[in-house]
């Protein structure tokens, strides 16, 4: 009797685990096993879908915007009108230097002679010291780059075995299973409002969709009429009282730069130099009220100053860096404090102002 209980126990255990693995691979919520067919949240597969987009449209891209979600409202048309170069916005969510490195290597491999200009929109946290351990680096939920093998292959330390092991290990995980179930329900009852086609235009620009709509916080669209500072102040008041309330974006609350990431960026600049690709670097702003908090609680000013000096040193070594513009404060480009949608991301209005401030300082006929 007890022996047969063991059989039933292990039998049901194995059937359950096998079912989970099968569902995870079929639904494929992180696009870890290729593009999935039922649609999934863009934040899980933006690297893959944007690169597929890039490839499918055979854009023969000559210029790209690179950066985090903060750079997603920079329109490629601005470059096309100004410099007559075909452009694409390759901004990805929670970007890190590794993303820039892999994306550029990928583009250079695809279109070796086309790329003429890279317009970096850098946030200081792109270079932050990461606490990810070796498992997390290959975990698609924590590092979205790792879901795309043809991008991840450029990463240092990449090897096929580790990659495949991580890929199938996550198939036996609850977070992937939870996402799978979520995907099934979402696609069964309504179209995925945050799937790739709903979030990005064909040129890679993010549509006017705000994350906070999901949280019933409306009026944060980018019309600039919403009082973002007041909203952030209230969130901070709530934070003091209610756990988890109105937490500010955590990206900025880091202390150190990662030497590895700084080195990787230097290597990337050298690669671009060798390929005769021109570079413009724009240091991105934070919403002024949030910036005042970040300045109070972290070494933000010190970090930005270090970053500016380090980039200027790089500029001296590499002739292809045309301009470094520190737009970390909105005054530097005459920006608006309410033109931050989701209370975080510069709207197209602030983005355009940044772009124009760069044009003003760019030497004539530089490109």
């Amino acid at each position, binding site marked *: 009797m*007890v*022996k*047969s*209980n*063991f059989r*039933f*126990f*292990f*039998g*049901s*255990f*194995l059937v*359950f*685990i096998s079912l*989970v693995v099968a569902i995870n691979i079929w639904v494929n919520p992180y696009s870890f096993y290729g593009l999935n067919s039922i649609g999934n949240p863009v934040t899980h597969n933006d690297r893959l879908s944007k690169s597929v987009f890039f490839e499918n449209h055979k854009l023969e891209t000559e210029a790209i915007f690179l950066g985090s979600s903060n750079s997603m409202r920079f329109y490629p048309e601005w470059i096309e009108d100004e410099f007559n170069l075909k452009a694409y916005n390759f901004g990805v969510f929670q970007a890190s230097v590794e993303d820039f490195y892999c994306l550029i290597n990928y583009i250079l491999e695809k279109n070796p002679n086309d790329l003429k200009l890279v317009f970096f929109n850098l946030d200081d946290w792109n270079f932050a010291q990461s606490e990810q351990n070796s498992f997390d680096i290959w975990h698609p939920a924590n590092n979205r780059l790792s879901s795309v093998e043809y991008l991840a292959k450029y990463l240092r330390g990449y090897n096929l075995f580790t990659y495949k092991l991580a890929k199938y290990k996550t198939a*036996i*995980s*609850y*977070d992937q*299973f939870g996402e799978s179930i979520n995907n099934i329900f979402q696609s069964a009852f309504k179209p995925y409002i945050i799937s790739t086609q709903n979030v990005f235009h064909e040129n890679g620009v993010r549509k006017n969709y705000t994350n906070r709509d999901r*949280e*019933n*916080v*409306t*009026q*944060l669209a980018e019309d600039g009429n*919403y*009082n973002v500072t*007041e*909203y952030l102040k*209230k969130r901070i008041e*709530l*934070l*003091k*009282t*209610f*756990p*988890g*309330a*109105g937490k500010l974006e955590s990206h900025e609350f880091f202390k150190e730069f990662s030497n590895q990431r700084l080195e990787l960026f230097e290597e990337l600049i050298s690669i671009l130099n060798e390929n005769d690709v021109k570079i413009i670097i724009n240091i991105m702003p934070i919403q002024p009220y949030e910036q005042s908090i970040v300045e109070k609680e972290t070494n933000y000013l010190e970090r930005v100053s270090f970053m500016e000096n380090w980039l200027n040193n790089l500029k001296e070594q590499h002739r292809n860096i045309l301009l470094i513009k520190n737009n970390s404060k909105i005054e530097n480009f005459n920006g608006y404090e309410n033109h931050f949608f989701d209370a975080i991301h510069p709207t197209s209005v602030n983005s355009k102002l940044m772009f124009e401030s760069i044009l003003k300082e760019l030497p004539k006929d530089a490109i």
Partner: protein
Amino acid sequence: MLFNSLGFILFFLPLTLFIWFRLKRRDDKFLFLTLASLFFYGYWDYRFVSLMLVSIFIDYWCGVKISKAKLKGQISKSKHWMLGSVISNLTILGVFKYYDFFIDSLTIIFAENTIATYRLDIILPVGISFYTFQSMSYSIDLYRNDATKVRNLLHFSAYVSMFPQLIAGPIVRYKEIASQFSNNTFSLSYSRLYEGFTFFIIGLFKKLVVADYFAQYSDLYFNEVIEPNFISSWIGAFSYAFQIFFDFSAYSEMAVGIGLMLGFNFPKNFNRPYIAKSFSDFWRRWHITLSEFLRDNLYIPLGGNKNGKINTYFNIFITMLLGGLWHGASSLFLIWGALHGFYLLIERAIKPSFEGINKYFYSILVFLLVCIAWVFFRSTNIDFAFLTIKAMFAQPLIWFELGSYKAIGLDFPLVFRFAGGLKHIFIVFAMMFSIWFIPSTYNLINKFSSKVGAIILGLIFGYLILIIQKPSPFIYFQF
């Protein structure tokens, strides 16, 4: 190594069981169990393995001396050896756990910063409070004629270092397990193995699903809130009350389960404490093995209830105070212990006038007061603990403030989501209601003895394997 880690569940435990059942000779089994336990302990920090070995050798040696003295009828000599064992263990505990607290207290009392330079800044060896108590219980039980001398050092080292309950109990006193070292339960028995697995999986479920769920909110509350209010303070206190109960009882039941798999019967450590009918009943249901240890080795030797009311009150208070201090070298634990001592005193003093009170009402009152005491146990500093208590009682409700949040686009439900969410508040109240109806694990075990029960257990185990990503340590590891 944590019970709730894949390394333990998928590698250490199966391998240990496999070798344990393959070994034929009892002494080989105990040698292997000692080595496996030392590996288990050393996996956390190998440097402290030697400390445990010192404790083992001292108590084994004292045990030999106590037995010899007893054989010769030298009672006072045996008492000296027993005291030697107790003092040695308390010295180890004192140096590693309380020395820095003592220095810090002197620094504050004399307002003299130079005293602080005498701090040792030693890392607290995990489980030290448990294994030192367990180890010295041998000498005490021998001295009191409650147990006979252990057969050899192997048996004794296996008893002290036994990995299932090494880190966080239950505190297995030697007299409770002595006879088991010579019984025939160490060969493979499917029924014991299955029962042990069931205990282990129920414990794992309690830890991963229930305790870790409540931990999310209580950690947020106690680590991040700056200005507690009425709702967040009560929900924070309730959440921690459930977290610590499910966390600690989970560990105890997993230990009992592993013990059963190996062939040992460990004592019960919890018996639905939150439905206790009184404070004294609470302490008969919560961390039972510690309560019994303190009763037999502190409260009764102090005189118990035999020397009049005042002495009884004093003995209760001192026992609870030291019980609080046992948990950690901090004034917050002292306050927690003192508060429980105070509850017991009041209950004892005015109990007669409580007789007309509805027993359910009194039981709820006991639960609420226990939750208030948990605030001191969990808070990271005294100021926050008192802020929380103030918010629980002295702060007006915050309903009227909600309108202003709505004005900035944060609607009503969103505010509650920030407070841990309506879902969380509902779960807290649902849990308060269900503690009256959820049977204890000891009664739940039988439900899994059928084929359907086995299938359900397998599915639960599968689910638990899925949700283990980064195992969180058990709360009682720090003690």
